[in-house]
């Protein structure tokens, strides 16, 4: 059930990108001024503050996709980019937007390792040209029981995996995110094991819905949303969708995944959205729709986040209560 009326404004026009950019430049500028005033040069090198400007998002040319979810209205650009989890930039959901300007997204490469015909490194700009970028509007469900609708831009991860030429011994795919104390000093404050690691079974990774994502709302990803490249798995809880990926490994055994390592009883390897599997803190039966007024923010959570028709077959015969 949607709260706001569907609008026929193209998603690229909904947000005022300039407002957002100005805010971020202001934040960077203010932080730089404040830090130098305090003599905290360690935190903001001139190089990094320059980066805040050069990492400005660029417009993407996208094509429509039949895999985009129809009939749902995207959450505002502002909410998508100011309310999210990205522990490398702080544990509060408003932290990533404040702190991720430190992230340096160029140059950027993704290393391909493990059971592949040939280990190699892809440059981000080449990666973005590998296949036409599609707009995919997906539901996004966080394990913390809130949800959004996000117009992502990317192409199916399967296109990239084919280019990686994995061997038949590759049963799982592991995603490793950037771990950089300089750009992400917050990782020191967290008890999680770094770098952030996520993983998928090969058939999940090859599923056409699994998106290798470079942008949202028709422009390159804002840093806080996992720039310059991330994955998006609309039928799984948000934390499965690894951000700012620097390495993809094709492996034989189920790889370690960060939240599962941290609390195995709470976060399983699969982490499919499932209203019938409870979490000790959050009821997974309902979700709060971000951006909705508080008295009608609650809506029922759908099995596989509403993507059951496409993905349920992946888990045929599996007990999803034990394989949560």
């Amino acid at each position: 059930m949607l709260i706001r009326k569907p609008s026929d404004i193209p998603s690229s026009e909904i947000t005022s990108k300039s407002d957002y950019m100005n805010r971020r430049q202001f934040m960077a500028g203010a932080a730089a001024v404040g830090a130098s005033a305090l003599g905290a040069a360690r935190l903001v090198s001139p190089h990094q503050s320059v980066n805040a400007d050069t990492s400005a998002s660029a417009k993407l040319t996208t094509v429509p996709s039949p895999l985009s979810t129809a009939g749902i209205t995207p959450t505002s650009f502002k909410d998508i980019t100011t309310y999210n989890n990205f522990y490398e930039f702080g544990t509060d959901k408003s932290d990533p937007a404040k702190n991720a300007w430190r992230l340096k997204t160029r140059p950027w490469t993704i290393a391909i390792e493990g059971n592949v015909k040939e280990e190699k490194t892809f440059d981000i700009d080449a990666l973005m040209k590998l296949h036409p970028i599609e707009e995919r509007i997906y539901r996004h469900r966080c394990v913390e029981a809130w949800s959004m609708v996000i117009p992502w831009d990317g192409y199916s991860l399967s296109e990239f995996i084919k280019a990686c030429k994995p061997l038949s011994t590759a049963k799982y795919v592991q995603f490793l995110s950037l771990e950089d104390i300089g750009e992400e000093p917050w990782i020191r404050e967290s008890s999680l094991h770094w770098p952030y690691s996520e993983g998928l079974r090969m058939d999940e990774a090859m599923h056409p819905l699994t998106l290798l994502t470079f942008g949202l709302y028709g422009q390159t990803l804002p840093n806080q949303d996992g720039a310059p490249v991330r994955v998006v798995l609309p039928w799984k809880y948000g934390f499965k969708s690894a951000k700012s990926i620097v390495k993809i490994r094709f492996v034989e055994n189920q790889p370690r995944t960060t939240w599962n390592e941290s609390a195995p009883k709470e976060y399983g390897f699969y982490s499919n959205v499932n209203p019938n599997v409870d979490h000790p803190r959050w009821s997974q039966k309902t979700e709060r729709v971000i951006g909705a007024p508080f008295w009608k923010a609650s809506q029922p959570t759908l099995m596989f986040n509403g993507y059951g028709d496409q993905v349920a077959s992946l888990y045929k015969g599996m007990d999803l209560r034990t394989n949560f």
Partner: protein
Amino acid sequence: MPNRFVVALKWIVFPLCLVPLGVLVDQGFTDSLGPDPVATITHQTGFWALYFLLISLAITPIRRFHRRLAWLIRFRRMLGLFAFFYACLHITTWIWLFSNFNAHTMAHDVVKRPFITVGFFAWLILLALAATSTLWAIRKLGGKRWLWLHRAVYVAAIAGVIHYWWIVKTGVRTPWKVTVVLAILLLARLVWMVMESARKNRVTVATAA
């Protein structure tokens, strides 16, 4: 402090205690509760329930610093009742915004989610204390029994802090501040008890000799 000053001060403190609620209401009307308004309301009402509980627990130790601070005791009930007031708003967000008045969902939560079990327990204690906060109740129960019952506030405060630790995610350590404050307030009582018994012993020894 003369009575009229205490009364005048109460007229200032009472509306001050309503400021956190006022801020929330204002944010509600100006659409500035943030992207997740339900979370904002829940967190703020929960924080203030805990803060008021800690403030009311601070009265006694502070009062013991000096005889001339004795008048502070006259604010304790009001502050305690404000803790209960914010705890009621907090539990209302759960009953309404999270459970949509569904008794089955709530019962399930109380049984299955430890942080809700302990939070609900803390609220029940506050309810009992609020219900017996009148002069009439003190007379009816008798001073001693009333005092014993109201010592349950320590249990409520500890349960409230545990409730906070159990809702935050692994790796989040934000509850440490309220934990330290509560520890200091409880420790202050322990120190006082030890000092008192030592003093009494000295007195007994002195009289015996």
